């Protein structure tokens, strides 16, 4: 049984992916603190390594066109093991949502609302997102086009305004760090921003896609999203140089440095606008996916009642996740990628292989 019967168009699906990746582009300090001026290369490496994973996701989408991830797991692994995996994924979705809510709270506090307790910001955000979640996939993805186009325009404007401060020499030396750092960086970028695209395996039944369309939307979405990350990163590296890894929010500092004459300066409010829009979008998608996964698990279609309860859980979870931002950053760098790896890559791969066998068997029997 499908919980949410809403449908979205392929374009909405694509822009959702773009927005989803873009939202990570502003919070790149976890990556830049590892690979410094070579971070842009890491994004390219990461994107290349991630292409096979996208193929896995696409194949799963095509193999089970009207089943979401929880249903797929049920079918492939049977009711018991399937439920176990399902619970792992629900935990994964909830954690991701909480992490992003935490980011939103912390960074909004850091950029514009200094004295406001972050819990207020989190609750406000989750409340608004819950309205979207109650109305289902249509409303959650409705503003993706608007958000990603606005953000792209603002990014282009900021690059133009920073042209006089760009020092291309900051990219040198290329490839001079220890090899381990590159591996770590690539792992980070594939698991944290890119791997999170897994959540779209929960959404794909709401988009009717054939093979050609699926490839087109997935890859265009992924490609354009990656380009935005690349632009933001290159801008930060070129402007900040060796100061890149000192800041919690390098993009904010970069935009702060905009200074054209006396009038055109202090543009960091742009950053806050971008950040809040994108994080809000990401949170509502993740929130929706968590609620959807839970209701799918318990076979109920009462999204509306679940959403507020899940929201409360998410806020509490976010508040207790890490004692301090420092530990948050540390674990994002050293622990999270390893926990995410099996969830994002290994289980989907296994699911795909087993699923293919099962389908073939069913075909033979039929």
């Amino acid at each position, binding site marked *: 049984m499908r919980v949410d019967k809403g449908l979205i168009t392929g374009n909405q699906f694509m822009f959702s992916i773009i927005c989803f990746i873009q939202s990570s582009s502003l919070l790149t300090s976890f990556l830049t603190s590892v690979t410094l001026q070579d971070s842009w290369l890491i994004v390219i490496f990461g994107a290349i390594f991630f292409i096979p994973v996208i193929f896995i996701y696409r194949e799963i989408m095509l193999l089970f066109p009207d089943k979401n991830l929880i249903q797929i797991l049920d079918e492939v692994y049977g009711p018991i093991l399937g439920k176990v995996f399902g619970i792992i994924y629900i935990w994964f979705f909830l954690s991701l949502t909480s992490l992003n809510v935490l980011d939103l709270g912390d960074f909004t506090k*850091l950029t*514009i*609302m*200094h*004295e*406001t*307790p972050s819990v207020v910001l989190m609750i406000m955000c989750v409340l608004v997102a819950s309205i979207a979640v109650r109305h289902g996939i249509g409303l959650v993805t409705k503003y993706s086009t608007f958000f990603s186009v606005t953000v792209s325009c603002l990014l282009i404007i900021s690059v133009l305004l920073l042209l006089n401060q760009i020092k291309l*020499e900051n990219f*040198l*030396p290329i490839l*001079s760090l220890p090899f381990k750092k590159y591996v770590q960086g690539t792992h980070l970028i594939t698991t944290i921003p890119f791997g999170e695209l897994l959540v779209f395996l929960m959404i794909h039944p709401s988009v009717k896609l054939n093979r050609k369309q699926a490839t087109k939307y997935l890859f265009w979405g992924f490609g354009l999203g990656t380009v935005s990350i690349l632009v933001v990163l290159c801008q930060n590296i070129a402007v*900040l*140089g*060796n*100061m890149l890894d*000192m800041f919690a929010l390098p993009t904010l*500092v970069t935009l*702060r*440095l905009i*200074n054209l004459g006396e009038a055109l*300066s*202090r543009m960091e409010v742009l950053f806050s606008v971008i950040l809040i829009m994108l994080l809000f979008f990401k949170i509502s998608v993740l929130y929706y996916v968590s609620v959807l996964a839970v209701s799918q698990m318990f076979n109920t279609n009462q999204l509306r009642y679940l959403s507020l309860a899940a929201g409360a859980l998410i806020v509490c979870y976010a508040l207790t996740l890490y004692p301090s931002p420092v530990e948050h950053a540390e674990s994002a760098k050293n622990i999270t990628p390893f926990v995410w790896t099996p969830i994002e890559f290994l289980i989907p791969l296994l699911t795909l292989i087993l699923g293919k066998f099962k389908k073939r068997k069913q075909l033979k029997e039929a």
Partner: protein
Amino acid sequence: MSMRLFKKTAALGILISILAGFSGCWDSKEIDTIQIVTGVGLDKAENDEYVDISIQIAKTSPSAPGTKDSNGNGDSKIILESSKQTILEGVAELNLNNSRSPIFHHNQVLLISADLAKEGITEYLDAFMRDREARLEVLVVIVDGEAKEMLQADFEQEKVSGIFLRRTIRLLSNVTPEYSVRMIDLASRLRDESISPVATLVRLEDNDDKKNLLVEGMAVFDSEGKMIGNIDADEMRGYVWAMGKVEQGRVAVECEYGRAAFQIISMDCKRNVKLNEKGQVNVSFDVDATLNIGELRGFENLTPSELISHLIEETEGEIEDTIKGTFQSMQDLGADIYGVGLDLKRHHPKQWDKLKDRWEDYFSEAELELDVNVRIPGTGQIKKSLEMEDGENES
């Protein structure tokens, strides 16, 4: 009233009450409770553990423009002072004993006295970079003398010396961007062991009852952030020419025929750093300059073509000497303000790793190769000098 309408009205009522109750943010500050900081000065305190902090505040009270009071006697700034072990404590103290709280968003300059700078500036920058109100594009200026005096000084053009300093340095940075050192530039150099930090060095000159600002050059720091010397105004030319990107300025030469002064149209410097066979660092500066004749005195006996080639020769010599002079004195100081090490690190990272521990020594022994190319395409609005004889010019 139907149920539907009732619901709608109730929702509207709730929304309006939310709007009234939840508007604004926690940290809103009304304009009449703040004072705008336009300059911060750090001085050495009598006690070594302490640091003297002075804050310059531009008066926000409106006084009618044109009245005597606003132009004449009325002081347009307030100076607050305190002395504490850390910057934050000092600012907190200023906050306590005041009816308005200082806002650092619009801070124009951070002044550090040379005495304090000689003991190291790194520890003081931390507070300014960490504070979310502070901006990294604040200019950092080292004052030869007392920073507090500089903040108190009345200048002719601007009443608030913080703004005066910023505008002066902004004008200077038209000559070359090297003149304006922002917090982020300084911090970036402090973090990088391959380039020595510099900051603009200014001095207050007492001229009868008027104060004059004198840009002396640059203060030079070692990698620990201690001021170890300075570049004076003459050497400064050698520094900015070697850094390239010069778009204004003058070159003057004197030779047996007379004196000549030139305007710099553009001056670019390409650098190449490599290690030679002996393991010595080899720096080559390739200077490409375009000059315009600005002023000529003498040169009566030369034909125009002779004149230009002679002038080219002379200016090339002058530029070469100036750059070499500065380079030599920086080598004596052991301060790599050019970022020769940075070039090495960027282009030959492996070789840099071997040299970086003793970079100061390697830099002091580095060999400089200079190649200056001058072009003089323009002669200004007049083609000949008044003093030149007509006959000779026609050949």
